């Protein structure tokens, strides 16, 4: 074998600790990079798979094509899998729904070959149709239309084309025009058809079946159809969807599978996207920085020793190429061990993490979905990770070699570059002298004259502090942003409302539902949305700032929308007590007073034209009590308010028209009244401020609370808020929901007004949990990297100074003195590391804050607990490493060490 390879291998073996730590460094870096890349990729695949399962794998669809056009589209460049369905026809199946403006049709589509691969057709009963006489009905048909078919029923319908009275074909994107619409529509050339119902499928999402579609889509197979063909297709390069769309203009009406497109990397221009990219960039930066610095440090700490050896090699005739070769060989050897192990560790780590989090991921998607989170490996990404690691290793190893190549051999041997001792005067402070004695003086001289040697340690400490704190900030802000964008949990699990006569006794309904659902807490309220007018002097500066940019604001008051809530008296009293207010003040019917929940969730225009979320206070708490007002057009029997206008002399006028059956304006006649006469002003006396209560929307909205019994006193005897809202907190929301459903059915009340809110917010909560788990994993890995980094640098550094210590020992430095010297050095390391690390960490935190701020408004803060941990750990790790290293040194025989040129 080549002598230089022998040399390399022997060096590695001789410096076993350093070699092992370097390999650990490579393993950790590789593991981290792998975990990040594969984790992201797996998550991405999971989202794509769940969308594909949920909504089908199709990416582009075109409707309204002739069969020939459909064929052309299916054979267009870049189109992957494709399938069609042919319109068999429309049938009016529920004319009474048409009158209400609901879906009245059934739309029968005949499925072509392979459509199951592109659309998610999930059977809830029966089987797929196999021939033209069989039909599959959507689940929403029987649910909402009042038309109930079961498996095995026969269905007869008159199918024809849906056309306007002018004979033009109407697409599924046109809602039912109805008899009073812009056009009359009919089913042309109806033809009687009889089908056997073979099954029910879960109706398509809006991406396939648009909201406007006035027909329930029923599926059959093998029918010719009326020539109106729809193509569904995938693209060969989903990442280039936008390009494909631009290059191939639509022939029919085109739809793009927006969820799938989004998850394939074609995001829109939203502020969340900006934040997402920003966070990813910061993450990649931190990881890359951490691992590169770890590997680099592992090599560079022994630079001076290596430089010297390269110098000797060179002086006995090693060429540049040979030295470079030896370095590459070394890097290769280390990588050959570190990279595969790191790869396995990274994959295993992220695989285990993802498996553990399965439950959390499951609840993010449709219950019962078969898509499960699992580790999906991306070979190309792994290769890239390995290459990044290898290149880093190579570069780190090559730097000292480059230096050795550049300078003359004798300079390398003397290490004039690396150990640039400065013969400058060093004054040791009196305190140092007192605390650390002669040894402290030695150490401080060492430190000041031989900065290069200490630099690697300080740099590794600095990096560690920065990485740790930045990682913590990153996680903290990310969690904040996710919570912020998703909205805060309002704490209410189940919601119900009553209307009409059922509103008469809310206490009874509350008691019934609470008992049935075995709920923890529950209340009811009447609420409405009010445009409050706030006197400027009572407006909080935060709100003022927001309103300043709103040109529609009047001068003598600000308009601020919010909720007006009449809360169950008992809950209201609770609210008062919780906030230290006297309930008695609020129950005077002659002077009703309100409590205010002062915070509003707001959306502001973010950078790049997106929105970002935040909170703002509305009233200035110092100015309470104060009075707000609102105005509304007066009610007039038989008439409805239509719009405002301005009269010739500049006065605001209110217009009224005759009231139709459904409350719509009818006729030609317009009545106008001056606003000053026709407007009713309501006053709201605000008596106290409360913290954010957990009653529904108040978490996000400026809200005035009155006792339920004060409703008429505030709004007047004729006021009607039409519905009463109930909210419940139930630990087991799913069970409570079912029990309440049963109770309602038994009581002959509708269940359509009952919602399981918790199920909806569950996925948000899970998202936050996933983010948290990843954050912790990330922090742990980064900390490990930082730890390895510091340990590596300090221990090697001490080992390199073996000779120096042995010499000091040989002239009489005792163990105690040695310890004092070490302590002093630790102190300097720690201080210096923090001196650079903390500002850098704060700077990174600031960058992260800016990134988070593009989606979510949040104040700048530093994660102090992490800072304290970082400061504590710095000293702990430094001292521990020093202890370890000096324990090893103490085992040394002084003479051996003196002679030892090798570490």
């Amino acid at each position: 074998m080549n002598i230089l390879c022998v040399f390399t291998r022997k060096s590695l073996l001789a410096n076993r600790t350093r070699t092992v730590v370097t390999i650990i460094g490579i393993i950790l870096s590789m593991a981290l990079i792998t975990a990040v890349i594969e984790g992201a990729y797996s998550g991405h695949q999971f989202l794509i798979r769940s969308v594909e399962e949920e909504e089908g794998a199709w990416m582009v669809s075109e409707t309204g094509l002739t069969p020939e056009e459909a064929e052309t589209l299916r054979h267009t460049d870049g189109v992957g899998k494709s399938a069609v369905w042919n319109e068999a026809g429309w049938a009016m199946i529920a004319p009474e729904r048409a009158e209400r403006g609901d879906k009245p049709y059934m739309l029968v589509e005949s499925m072509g070959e392979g459509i199951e691969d592109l659309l998610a057709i999930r059977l809830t009963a029966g089987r797929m149709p196999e021939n033209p006489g069989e039909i599959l009905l959507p689940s929403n048909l029987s649910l909402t239309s009042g038309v109930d078919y079961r498996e095995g029923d026969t269905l007869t319908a008159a199918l024809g084309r849906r056309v306007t009275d002018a004979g033009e074909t109407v697409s599924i994107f046109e809602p039912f025009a109805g008899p009073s619409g812009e056009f009359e529509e009919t089913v042309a050339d109806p033809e009687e058809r009889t089908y056997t119902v073979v099954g029910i499928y879960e109706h398509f999402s809006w991406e396939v079946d648009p909201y406007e579609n006035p027909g329930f889509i029923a599926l059959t197979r093998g029918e010719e159809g009326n020539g109106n063909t729809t193509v569904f297709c995938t693209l060969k390069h989903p990442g280039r969807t936008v390009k494909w769309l631009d290059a191939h203009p639509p022939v029919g009406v085109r739809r793009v599978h927006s969820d799938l497109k989004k998850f394939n990397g074609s995001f829109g221009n939203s502020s969340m996207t900006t934040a997402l990219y920003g966070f990813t960039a910061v993450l990649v930066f931190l990881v890359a920085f951490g691992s590169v610095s770890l590997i680099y440090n592992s090599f560079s700490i022994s630079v001076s020793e290596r430089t010297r050896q390269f110098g000797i090699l060179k002086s006995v005739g090693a060429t540049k190429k040979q030295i470079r070769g030896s370095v590459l060989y070394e890097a290769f050897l280390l990588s050959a061990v570190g990279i595969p192990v790191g790869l396995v560790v990274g994959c295993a780590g992220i695989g285990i993490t993802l498996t553990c989090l399965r439950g959390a991921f499951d609840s993010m998607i449709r219950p019962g979905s078969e898509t499960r989170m699992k580790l999906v490996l991306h070979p190309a990404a792994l290769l890239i990770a390995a290459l990044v690691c290898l290149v880093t290793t190579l570069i780190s190893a090559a730097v000292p070699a480059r230096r050795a190549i550049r300078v003359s051999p004798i300079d390398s041997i003397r290490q004039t570059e690396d150990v640039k001792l400065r013969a400058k005067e060093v004054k040791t402070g009196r305190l140092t002298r007192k605390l650390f004695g002669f040894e402290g003086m030695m150490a401080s001289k060492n430190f000041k004259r031989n900065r290069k040697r200490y630099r690697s340690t300080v740099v590794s400490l600095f990096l560690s502090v920065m990485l740790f704190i930045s990682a913590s900030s990153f996680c903290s802000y990310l969690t904040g942003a996710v919570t912020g964008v998703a909205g805060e949990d309002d704490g209410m699990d189940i919601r119900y409302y009553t209307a009409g006569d059922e509103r008469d006794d809310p206490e009874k309904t509350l008691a019934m539902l609470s008992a049935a659902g075995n709920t923890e807490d529950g209340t009811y309220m009447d609420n409405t949305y009010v445009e409050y007018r706030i006197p400027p002097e009572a407006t909080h500066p935060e709100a003022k700032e927001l309103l300043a940019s709103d040109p529609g604001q009047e001068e003598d008051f600000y308009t601020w929308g919010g909720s007006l809530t009449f809360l169950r008296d008992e809950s209201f009293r609770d609210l008062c007590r919780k906030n230290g207010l006297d309930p008695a003040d609020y129950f005077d019917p002659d002077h009703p007073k309100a409590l205010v929940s002062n915070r509003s969730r707001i959306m502001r225009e973010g950078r790049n034209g997106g929105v970002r979320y935040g909170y703002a206070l509305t009233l200035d708490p110092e100015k309470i009590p104060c009075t707000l007002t609102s105005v509304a057009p007066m009610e007039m029997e038989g008439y409805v308010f239509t719009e405002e206008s301005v009269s010739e002399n500049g006065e605001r006028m209110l217009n009224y028209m005759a009231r139709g059956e459904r409350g719509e304006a009818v006729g030609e006649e317009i009545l106008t009244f001056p606003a000053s006469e026709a407007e009713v002003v309501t006053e709201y006396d605000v008596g106290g401020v409360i913290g954010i209560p957990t009653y529904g929307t108040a978490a996000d909205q400026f809200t005035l609370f009155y006792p339920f019994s004060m409703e008429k006193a505030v709004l007047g005897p004729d006021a009607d808020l039409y519905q009463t809202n109930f909210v419940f907190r139930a630990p087991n929301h799913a069970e409570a929901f079912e029990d309440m459903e049963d109770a309602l059915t038994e009581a002959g009340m509708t269940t359509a007004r009952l919602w399981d809110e918790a199920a909806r917010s569950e996925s948000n909560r899970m998202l936050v949990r996933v983010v948290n788990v990843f954050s912790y994993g990330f922090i742990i890995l980064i900390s490990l990297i930082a730890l390895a980094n510091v340990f590596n640098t300090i221990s090697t550094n001490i080992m390199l100074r073996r000779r120096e210590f042995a010499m000091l020992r040989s002239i009489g430095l005792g163990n105690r003195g040695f310890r004092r010297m070490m302590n002093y050095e630790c102190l300097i390391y720690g201080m210096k590391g923090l001196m650079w690390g903390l500002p850098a960490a704060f700077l990174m935190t600031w960058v992260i804050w800016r990134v988070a701020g593009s989606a979510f408004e949040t104040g700048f803060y530093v994660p102090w607990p992490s800072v304290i941990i970082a400061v504590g750990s710095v000293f702990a790790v430094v001292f521990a490493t020093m202890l370890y290293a000096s324990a090893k040194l103490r085992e040394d025989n002084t003479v051996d060490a003196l002679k030892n040129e090798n570490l």
Partner: protein
Amino acid sequence: MEILRIENLTKVYGSGENQVRALDGVSFTVEKGEFLAIIGPSGSGKSTLLHILGGVDRPTGGKVWLDGQDVYAQDEEQLAVFRRRQVGLIYQFYNLIPVLNVEENMTLPVLMDGRPVNEERLNELLGILGLNERRKHLPNQLSGGQQQRVSIGRALMNAPSVVLADEPTGNLDSRNSQEIVELLRSSNVRYKQTLIVITHDENIALQADRIIAIEDGRITRDERIREARA
């Protein structure tokens, strides 16, 4: 025949106040096969001169010709080959590779040149240097004198045309010193090698064909004692 020509060589270390003129306009020539001793007080620039002759340092000014070749006009690659084939350098402070054993250290230049090791020569050298028993030892397991002998072995292994030795006997007793000098001398005669030795030892200097004395980076004396034997 002239093998070495040194012209107006200067070497300046540092800058400003700390500037040191280690060599200050040194010129001389050396005949092929000559045994030249360089003497001078400590810090006079002897090692500096030797390093420059050996192609491991760079002069601040002046030129060095070896065998008609301007040494420092060569590129790095040629210089490396020059170091491994033309000169054998014995350092004042051995400069052995700590992780390589005696044998490997000695054969380093040959192996680096990609040539097979001449076992006969290796054994002969090990025998003469008294390192036969130590051939598998690492440098830190050797005494100072033994390490010195390994570095001599390394320099002689390739039978270079010029051998440069910086106090090769600094760590040896007089009997051992004499043996080393004899070894160098015989190699000098046998291979017609040019031998340049820095020494503080008057006995050794007097065995040379010629003595150059350096003081403060300048040649103060250049004295031929006898005709070259090689």
